[in-house]
């Protein structure tokens, strides 16, 4: 269960590049390559080892005309998928800058 106070970071072997409105994400240990749409690109950019999930959702809410609850649900669901795929990982509270 992802909560608003949690902070995520990209896994060590993950690199990404913004291409237009989309993002190309590479898991180099695979190697595995993913393409993220515009919102996904903003999420992977925002997963920076210091921004909480709640702050990330708030930032996206300013950019996209979406119901905040829907956005929160979509972002947490997407973060879960990224975590399961080994793209991002939840940080321990003691590691958050």
């Amino acid at each position: 269960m992802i909560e608003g106070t949690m902070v995520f970071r990209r896994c060590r072997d993950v690199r990404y590049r913004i291409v237009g409105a989309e993002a190309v994400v590479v898991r180099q240990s695979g190697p595995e390559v993913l393409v993220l749409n515009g919102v996904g690109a903003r999420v992977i950019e925002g997963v920076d080892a210091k921004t909480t999930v709640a702050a990330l959702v708030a930032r996206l809410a300013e950019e996209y005309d979406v119901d905040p609850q829907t956005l929160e649900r979509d972002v947490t669901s997407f973060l879960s998928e990224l975590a399961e795929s080994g793209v991002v990982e939840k940080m321990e509270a003691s590691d958050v800058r």
Partner: protein
Amino acid sequence: MSFRFGERFLRSPELFPARRAGEAWGRNAVAVDFGGGPYVFTGLSAEQEAAARERFSGFCRQGAVPREGIECRVLRVSPEEFRSFDLRGFELTLDLDAQADAVRVAGLGLMARLEWRPSLAAALWTASSGDDAFPGILENVLRMLAAYRIAECGGALLHSAGIVDGGAAWVFVGRSGAGKSTLSRLSLGEGRAVLSDDLNAVSWGAKGCWVSALPFAGDYHGAASEILPLGALCQLRQGQGHRIEPLSRAEGLAALLAAAPYVNQDPHRLDRLLSNLEALLDRAPLHRVTFSLEGGLWEALRAAHEVRV
């Protein structure tokens, strides 16, 4: 299961050589010439030289071995350094350890080291005196060396089928099973030349993009070094009927990146590779191509795309 670097192949990976030094097998040399090269193997025994010339025939320079080029010293090592194991069902991959100024490589019967000091050079340690295993060992190292060198020169080595139509080479990338060899076989049957159904080098310059034939192939390949203008980059899929569709730039970059072996695993050189691939996408047409076994794909391709030469 995760492994420490080299432990799948080496008995003592912690003793991996820290520099390109050791005892050469002999004084012979072979220059293999294609994109980014020549790639000059030195320190060969006569038997190893003969095996290399046979394996890379059509790509070997005749006469004196050039001083310039990417040198790979071939050095002796005891067979005791390597683990032996049952190869049945074993997928042959190489272990890589990329560092800022070097890449360490361990594989079946080989250790290799690529170094930038400041220009690229390599060493290969093998226990094979030139027997049946030697050409495969040499090719494994040459594939990697070429991938890094071509990326360094601004291009990319791509797992792909390179097929010639209308004087240009079309490059089809795709996952294993996407149909690269099938399309190569069908195209060959229709009278088109196939550069390789496995690896091709794509580069660009002031006069456009081009494709270099390489001495690496699965089932189908050309006979000699050749450079052709690039027709288009295509992401290949097998499906029902033929479809040629546009790809977004990100989808194209992802398809090319996934097809760029070795360097796409190297965190120190990934940015350079991505920039090369983006430069290619700026200059080359890009399609997603779905094809079936029925004929007529090339007519459909031409109808959807005017070849840029």
